[in-house]
């Protein structure tokens, strides 16, 4: 290869990389735009939003909308802000994610390492449950919760979220454990390890990536749920999405967009943090198995 040709080749490579970066940045802008709009406008006084350019940075910076959304905005008849509802959501999400993840892990373990006749049918039926429109289960679920005495309680919401998360958690763990070497399980069995011992000592320690994927998925879905939250909660168990909806959906009156946006970001913070902190593990976890099936 002549020196000139090499020059051209490096130049082409540089150009190619420049284009790659340009495209990646362009899409980063596309993805960031709504968040930017929300953030910029949550830091403006309402007047500035009304007259101004939605993309402009605030001329007068203010954190008043954030304070209002958190602790003084009218939500229902009480001017409490989102604060009290945050805790309700945490109390609902943590057990629901834990239960559905543990059950999903056990199900995946049984479905791959203790196979039996019809196991694929069982799995198929459980998986299909991910795909039903949740509106149809509203009325019958309400009936069951009523019969169990759980209507309007946090345990009731936990139960519903755990139940309708089972399909996905089982799917994730099953596909992950499918790739896990059977030999290790068999060896442990010969050593006399019991069902739960094998699970705890052999599979669980190497389940990190898929636990991350499952927890992220479940956490996001349950935290963001509105339908179940609004139907199955009562005074003491209203989750934050329902409160947020109450904040932004007034039928009359001035819409305080800056407060709405601040509230929306506040309500989304836990899921955002989960995504950003564990994003790397997320891809690793997908790589490790979830993608296959």
């Amino acid at each position, binding site marked *: 290869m002549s020196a000139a040709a090499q020059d051209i080749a490096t130049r082409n490579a540089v150009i190619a990389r420049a284009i790659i970066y340009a495209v990646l940045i362009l899409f980063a802008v596309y993805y960031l735009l709504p968040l930017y709009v929300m953030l910029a406008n949550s830091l403006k006084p309402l007047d500035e939003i009304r007259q101004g350019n939605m993309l402009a940075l605030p001329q007068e910076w203010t954190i008043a909308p954030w304070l209002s959304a958190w602790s003084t905005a009218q939500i229902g008849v009480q001017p409490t802000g989102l604060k009290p509802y945050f805790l309700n959501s945490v109390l609902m999400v943590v057990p629901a994610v834990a239960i559905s993840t543990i059950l999903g892990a056990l199900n995946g373990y049984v479905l791959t390492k203790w196979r039996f006749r019809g196991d694929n049918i069982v799995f198929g039926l459980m998986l299909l449950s991910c795909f039903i429109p949740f509106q149809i289960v509203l009325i019958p679920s309400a009936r069951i919760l009523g019969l169990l005495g759980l209507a309007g309680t946090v345990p009731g919401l936990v139960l519903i979220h755990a139940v309708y998360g089972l399909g996905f958690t089982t799917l994730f763990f099953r596909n992950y454990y499918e790739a896990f070497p059977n030999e290790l399980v068999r060896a442990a069995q010969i050593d006399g390890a019991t069902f739960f011992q094998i699970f705890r000592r052999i599979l669980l320690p190497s389940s990190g990536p898929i636990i991350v994927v499952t927890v992220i998925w479940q956490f996001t879905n349950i935290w963001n749920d509105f339908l179940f939250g609004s139907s199955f909660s009562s005074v003491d168990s209203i989750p934050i999405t329902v409160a947020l909806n*109450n904040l932004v959906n007034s039928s009359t009156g001035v819409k*305080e967009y800056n407060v709405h946006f601040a509230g929306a970001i506040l309500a989304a913070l836990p899921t955002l943090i989960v995504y950003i902190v564990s994003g790397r593990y997320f891809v690793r976890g997908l790589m490790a198995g979830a993608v296959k099936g």
Partner: protein
Amino acid sequence: MRKMILKAALAALLVSPAAVAVAADEVEVLHWWTSGGEAAALDVLKKKLESQGVTWKDMPVAGGGGEQAMTALRARVTAGNPPTAVQALGFDITDWANQGVLGDLNPVADKEGWDKVVPEALQKFSKHDGKWIAAPVNVHTTNWIWINKKALDAAGGKAPETWDELIAVLDKMKENGISPIGHGGQAWQDATIFDAVVLAEGTDFYKASMVDLDPAALNSDKMVGVFDKMAKLKEYVDADFSGRDWNLASAMVIEGKAGMQFMGDWAKGEFLKAGQKPGTDFVCVRFPGTQGAATFNADQFMMFKVGDDKLKAQEMMASDIMSPEFQSAFNVVKGSAPARTDVADTDFDDCGKKAIKDLAEANSNGKLFGSMAHGHANPAAVKNAMYDVITRHFNGEMDSKQAAQELADAVAAAKG
């Protein structure tokens, strides 16, 4: 073994907080007045109840003009756990009453003589089979026009009293370079205008088509004429109207970007909050040809059957809602008229006084009708079937003749 575990688990479930009896003297209220001024107005009621020793447990669910709240209510009733009181509109109350889940307020109503003071058109919804089942909070009338005074002065200064005058004013406003009608393209807003246009064709026609759902009236030349007028009004709406919230349309009128808005009297709250004064900054008139008649919607709290332990608090709440002081205080804030005709209008502004006077007049002449657009003329299924046709026609998807035909067909199908 497994059975035992199950039993133990079930036992544990049953001793959950919900199973424990709730304290006496409290009301749980499901409503969608969740933010801003109206939530603050409701707080008046809460404070009053608290002063009487009743705890207010708030269950707000906003969205879709009550649709989300009604979804939640279904779940609550199905679970056998209904709230004490639920905000509701028109035929929704009747529908729930038909399920046999509502209580009986007659003991309070008889004692306080509600029959005599609540307009009869309202009682149609507040009573079921001779029993009071709901306490009305307010009456909104919907056949209003809210006009920017400056824009009106620039367009001749005289508020329109006939269709032709209305068109003349609109034309003038267009010439003056503003958007004549401030309007939001949402089905219920389109239907609110439609209501007024139908009412302007005469109260008999309104009753025949919107209340009695007479197919001959629905698919009539008169109805084609109504749709033609809707198409005419559409010409004065700006291009970006689609999907706009009603309060943003009000803001256009307040700021003088638009000339007028056709909207119920909750719109007044927006003008007042912007520091405008009726008569000097904005003008409230009835839609041309509807003076003397009125279409209304009324927010009510329907009362569910509750145990004896909660009955006292429920009755106290109903009584408080109906008290003239609360009716006045609440409606001054909300922009509506009181749900009883004997409340003094002293605290109300000019538009509020007009609303109270018009309401009483229409009521005594038998010209007060439930608004179709707001679920007070026909059940939800029919109302929404009408919405579909009205909004599609307003968006230019069909001509007026076809619209009248489809209106009749859709209503027939939805009546089922």
